[in-house]
């Protein structure tokens, strides 16, 4: 007997009949009826009207019938919450059944019924099941906690289920452990701060042990969880890697990929000199290649991941080019991905083989694939210089095939080859010109026009060719129109006598008959250039072009690092961070690779190490930036972030609105597109260089000058520390320090572009702070910052900004904007930059003030191991505007009385007792008195910093 007949009942009055059957006394008939109901449900019929009748069938000892009823319940309970309650009793009873399969079934199904009222009844049975003697029930209950959390997170926390779930990680049964890990990982994702998965060496060890014993799926859960752990040093990283590598031989590709993820991530921490590092690299290649013999869908996932791995660590697969050769009957999605990887792996050593393959592919059927293959030939030429000639001749062969799209694609890439190797392959122009008529795609037409314009002097009939394009000027796409305009102007500048008419024609077409502002503007610019100063026009239009770089489609390093942390997942398939395709709060936590550490630094706590924060150089450990930002913006940004490498993007999003407006006003001279933080980078060439107001730029020049001189005699300047790592700012790295010279404070910044795009339109703004520090001039970055370029800027500061007391007192929160986004960071400034030059107090005044300030305002500090005598201390402090007013010698100890004044007029008085501790080092005892005692701590830090450096 088969079940397919249930699909075929389409009579009228069916529901009524089913109702009767469901209430029948005969067991068999009941079961039949429920099957029919389920079949109707599957094909999308609404059978919710039968709810009470179906639920009535629930109390049965027939497990098959029970399962069917449960299936129905899961589907319809939400639409009939009141009636769903009717089922509760049976569930609760089933949770006590002697048969573990039935207990598990009950708790599993109950979790799937997403009705609030039911969840209350679920708690008690769930609690029992989590401690059930049977592992099958426990592993089911573990998942049920995740289900309940999805419905009512608060309830799960209140009932203490999370703790029970954590305990299950130490369960004796590997499958229970695996499910508990999976459930906790998912819950932890929606609570980034909760530290639920408290990963430490002990729990990691437990997971690694369970890894050897659980099912393939369990291994995936555990490996994915391990990948979130940051080992405390390279030794721990290595020992985890050693225990994970056997997984590379698993038959399940997902286990292999998850293991690869863990290894790729932890490898970051291993030193390249280590023998083990090399061994590990060698071990990674074979399993990756083996993934390519899996089913095509998995091959696709693997190839998308290999694409990332090859960009991150090209050395792993550099000898494996052949396995990426395309097979004739690969599905198209596999073919396209293989092609991408082939180009990435192309090198001088294998270029001959690659080219032979690409030529073969260029004759295939699938148009997209053929186009990509032709484009790949061009990219090989640009990447491997030695092969350029062969590539060009291959492209010429392909042009001879006269296949329309092949020819067009070839012309587009030949244009790029001309750009890369100017004046080398122009002999092919004649062949290209023959195919002019067959070009119908804008990109190819534009490329061809560019070639004609660029080499107008070598093409006899260049004017005729361009004129022929001009006839249908208004039907062309903008791309072609712009290119045609430029090409004719170039032609005119090269052969002015014959082409005057042509150039006038194109200029009038562009300026008078066109509605396109880009085209009109370009037309007017050329027109004015040509009419006012033809020599200048020549210099501008025929200027030498910068060379193009070889790899054009690399993923940005910061994004790449993030994607490496997502190997195996959808993010790695889409090559997008999860926030780009996942809704809501889940998955927006940024992941990043751990930094490389040497074993000598192993004492550093894992929390501070990955942040790249200048912890070592600062007197205080800077609180994590996420927290500071939360304070700064005073917004409800959701739960704070646990570890420094995790910065929620919501912080950035929320912050934009608050400060965006202020930044806009800063950038008043460039109104377009600034209000929107997500606008794309404007084409670098089109943005005029911002010159700024002459006065302020002069000022900053002046400061540049003084900073060079001032460091010799001025107050102490700390070395530059990284304030904003590139990882957090889409490739912009900012490091800096503060200086004070001749009464002026400035912030010395070093901006480095670690992204792949040019950065422009920099601006800076400070949040209100304790001493009203504010930029005295706009941030002047005179030219766009190209990739890998670094620029040093000295930003003059004043203290007339708005004041708000910060915690800590010397905390400064900064927003920096560029064409990509707005970024926030905070830093602590040393207080001595605020010590003013006229801080020397009169002796009498000093005595009076000292007495006047109540004793409870006095603070005492110790400065140990100072290698200076009283004289030197005094001079050194004086250069930082701490003035010695008097000196006494009491019982062989030198006493210095000093004063200093802050920019806001607060006086600080000091008594410094110098005790000779041992022959070469002194211990200093510092007593500070001030009407605002909260500054004392920071003044002391300033003392220490100055004296110790």
């Amino acid at each position, binding site marked *: 007997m088969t079940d397919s007949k249930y699909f075929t009942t389409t009579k009228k009055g069916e529901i009524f009949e089913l109702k009767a059957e469901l209430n029948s006394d005969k067991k068999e008939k009941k079961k039949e009826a429920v099957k029919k109901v389920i079949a109707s449900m599957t094909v999308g019929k609404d059978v919710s009207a039968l709810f009470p009748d179906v639920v009535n069938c629930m109390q049965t000892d027939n497990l098959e019938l029970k399962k069917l009823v449960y299936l129905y319940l899961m589907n319809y309970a939400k639409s009939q919450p009141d009636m769903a309650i009717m089922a509760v009793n049976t569930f609760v009873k089933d949770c006590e059944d002697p048969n573990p399969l039935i207990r598990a079934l009950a708790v599993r199904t109950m979790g799937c019924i997403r009705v609030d009222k039911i969840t209350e009844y679920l708690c008690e049975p769930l609690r029992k099941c989590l401690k059930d003697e049977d592992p099958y029930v426990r592993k089911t209950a573990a998942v049920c906690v995740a289900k309940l959390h*999805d419905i009512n997170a608060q309830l799960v926390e209140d009932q203490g289920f999370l703790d029970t779930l954590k305990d299950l990680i130490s369960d004796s049964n590997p*499958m229970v452990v695996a499910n508990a890990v*999976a459930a906790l990982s998912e819950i932890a994702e929606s609570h980034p701060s909760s530290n639920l998965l408290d990963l430490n060496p002990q729990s990691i060890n437990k997971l690694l042990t369970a890894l050897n014993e659980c099912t393939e799926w369990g291994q995936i859960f555990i490996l994915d969880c391990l990948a979130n752990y940051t080992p405390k040093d390279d030794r721990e990283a290595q020992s985890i890697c050693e225990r994970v590598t056997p997984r590379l031989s698993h038959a399940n590709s997902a286990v292999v990929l998850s293991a690869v993820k863990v290894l790729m991530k932890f490898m970051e921490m291993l030193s390249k000199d280590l023998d083990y590092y090399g061994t590990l690299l060698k071990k990674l290649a074979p399993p990756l290649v083996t993934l390519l013999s899996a089913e095509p869908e998995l091959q696709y*996932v693997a190839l998308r991941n290999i694409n990332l791995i090859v960009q991150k660590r090209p050395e792993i697969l550099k000898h494996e080019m052949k396995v990426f050769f395309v097979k004739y009957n690969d599905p198209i999605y596999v073919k396209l991905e293989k092609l991408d990887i082939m180009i990435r792996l192309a090198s001088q050593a294998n270029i001959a083989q690659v080219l032979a393959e690409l030529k073969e592919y260029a004759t295939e059927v699938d148009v997209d694939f053929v186009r990509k293959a032709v484009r790949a030939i061009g990219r090989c030429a640009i990447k491997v210089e030695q092969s350029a000639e062969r590539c060009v001749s291959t492209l010429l062969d392909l042009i001879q095939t006269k*296949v329309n799209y092949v020819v067009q694609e070839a012309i587009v890439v030949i244009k790029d080859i001309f750009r890369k190797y100017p004046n080398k392959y122009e002999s092919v122009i004649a062949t290209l010109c023959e195919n002019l008529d067959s070009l119908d795609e804008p990109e190819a037409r534009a490329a061809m026009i560019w070639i004609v314009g660029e080499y107008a002097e070598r093409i006899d009939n260049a004017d005729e060719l361009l004129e022929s394009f001009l006839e249908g000027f208004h039907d062309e796409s903008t791309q072609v129109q712009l290119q045609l305009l430029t090409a004719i102007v170039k032609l005119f500048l090269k052969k002015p006598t014959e082409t005057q008419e042509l150039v006038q024609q194109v200029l009038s077409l562009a300026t008078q008959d066109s509605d396109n502002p880009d085209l009109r503007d370009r037309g007017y610019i050329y027109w004015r250039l040509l009419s006012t100063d033809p020599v200048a026009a020549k210099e501008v239009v025929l200027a030498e072009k910068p060379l193009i770089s070889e790899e054009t489609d690399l993923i940005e390093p910061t994004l790449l690092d993030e994607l490496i942390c*997502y190997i195996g997942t959808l993010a790695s398939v889409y090559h997008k961070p999860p926030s780009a395709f996942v*809704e809501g709060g889940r998955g927006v936590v940024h992941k990043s690779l751990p930094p490389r550490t040497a074993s000598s630094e192993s004492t550093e706590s894992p929390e501070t190490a990955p942040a790249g924060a200048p912890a070592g150089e600062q007197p205080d450990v800077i609180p994590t930036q996420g927290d500071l930002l939360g304070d700064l913006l005073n917004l409800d940004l959701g739960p704070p972030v646990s570890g420094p490498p995790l910065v929620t993007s919501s912080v950035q999003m929320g912050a934009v609105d608050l400060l965006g407006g202020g930044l806009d006003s800063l950038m008043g001279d460039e109104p377009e597109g600034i209000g929107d933080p997500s606008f794309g980078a404007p084409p670098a060439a089109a943005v005029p260089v911002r010159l700024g107001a002459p006065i302020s730029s002069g000022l900053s020049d002046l400061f540049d000058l003084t900073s060079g001189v001032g460091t010799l005699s001025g107050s102490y300047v700390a070395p530059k520390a990284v304030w904003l790592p590139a990882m957090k700012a889409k490739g912009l790295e900012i490091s800096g320090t503060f200086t004070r010279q001749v009464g002026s404070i400035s912030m010395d910044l070093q901006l480095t572009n670690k992204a792949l795009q040019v950065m422009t339109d920099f601006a800076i703004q400070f949040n209100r702070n304790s001493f009203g520090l504010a930029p005295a001039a706009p941030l002047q970055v005179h030219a766009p910052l190209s990739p890998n370029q670094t620029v040093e800027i000295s930003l003059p500061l004043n203290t007339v900004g708005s004041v708000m007391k910060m915690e800590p007192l010397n905390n400064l929160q900064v927003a920096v904007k560029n064409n990509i986004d707005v970024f926030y960071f905070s830093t602590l400034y040393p207080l001595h930059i605020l010590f003013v030059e006229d801080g020397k107090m009169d002796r009498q005044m000093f005595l009076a003030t000292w007495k006047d300030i109540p004793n409870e305002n006095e603070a005492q500090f110790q400065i140990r191991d100072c290698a200076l005598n009283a004289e030197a201390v005094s001079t050194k402090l004086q250069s930082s505007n701490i003035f010695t007013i008097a000196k006494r010698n009491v019982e062989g100890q030198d006493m210095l009385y000093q004063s200093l004044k802050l920019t806001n007029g607060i006086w600080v008085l000091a008594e410094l007792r110098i005790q000779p501790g041992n022959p070469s080092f002194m211990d200093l005892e510092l007593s500070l008195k001030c009407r605002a005692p909260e500054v004392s701590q920071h003044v002391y830090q300033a003392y220490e910093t100055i004296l110790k450096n």
Partner: protein
Amino acid sequence: MIGGLFIYNHKGEVLISRVYRDDIGRSWAADSAIFTSSGPFLGEEVNANRRNAVDAFRVNVIHARQQVRSPVTNIARTSFFHVKRSNIWLAAVTKQNVNAAMVFEFLYKMCDVMAAYFGKISEENIKNNFVLIYELLDEILDFGYPQNSETGALKTFITQQGIKSQHQTKEEQSQITSQVTGQIGWRREGIKYRRNELFLDVLESVNLLMSPQGQVLSAHVSGRVVMKSYLSGMPECKFGMNDKIVIEKQGKGTADETSKSGKQSIAIDDCTFHQCVRLSKFDSERSISFIPPDGEFELMRYRTTKDIILPFRVIPLVREVGRTKLEVKVVIKSNFKPSLLAQKIEVRIPTPLNTSGVQVICMKGKAKYKASENAIVWKIKRMAGMKESQISAEIELLPTNDKKKWARPPISMNFEVPFAPSGLKVRYLKVFEPKLNYSDHDVIKWVRYIGRSGIYETRC
């Protein structure tokens, strides 16, 4: 995790739909107007949500005119993973950043499990077994997390004859649950055979891509060791083969053995194992030890690229005679011991689309021009080693204006040979079962080698 799982027939009608997570429906409610075709069913919210996800896949993938460009599709922030078995579509749906490799592995596993229960995956079989499939889906996927999906374990408590729960004793029940969740989830205890027997099949597929000039562009063997075990108790097995690394390690002691066996050993590029194999032991000692599942399973997969015996060499000669005629001559040479016989030999010579007629002459076997496949198919039943055979054909072409050149697809070949082209040899398979009363010598063992062509192509 996986939010839902749907099975469709070739028309895009839903055969099975199981939703694990609420989120996969949520955003669809807003877009429901797009899918007016499902109008009659939109009566009720939960159902409407699901139907929309279901319909989105049908509209965008199954009914899409063009070829499938990716096995993963993102429609309105919902990701669809699909695999196709004959004309049945299996689709997994999610809104999260799931482990994509795991989802596909799961879909394949789902196919295996279904096949183990009711054979071929066809519309009819799915409809006939829909209750069973729902039951399986309930068991092997919980809240979107894959659970134990070994058929050996599943069959102990999910059966087609209804559940025997009433008749189970308490011991039986706990035995089931401990097996499903246990370390050795793939084998139940208490298996007994009167005759302990095992079969080992070394199945290799040899892949080749050769240039017209006879240069090997790429060649590799992907092999599988499939084991059928009928052994009592919980036998501990150890499998040995002529792995170069192992042989060299052992050979250190006896120098002459190294030189003798050195030639016979093979370099394995990479191998993967069934989950019963202890991977950490393989990693440290390179020994393959395991407790096998009962019945048939794939013990290992491996890949070799060095010193492959290419059983056949194809030598093509294509000459264009004017614009309307092609002359093709293809020679195949067998390259193995003369005492062995290759079988099921088939050479497929592609012909241009504008072929009007073909004359074929071959010395051995039968050759036919198959217009529907645009190829000449030449079949030879058997061929001994170190032999040579040839086919020549004249192809008449219709004159065309089509500028596009004929792509000249490669000549492909199929065959089966009774040896392993990689050179792999099984050295031993030892069985230990300390609790039961049989020893390694009592087990009857069978080994068989089959080499098949994978993608075996020569460009012309």
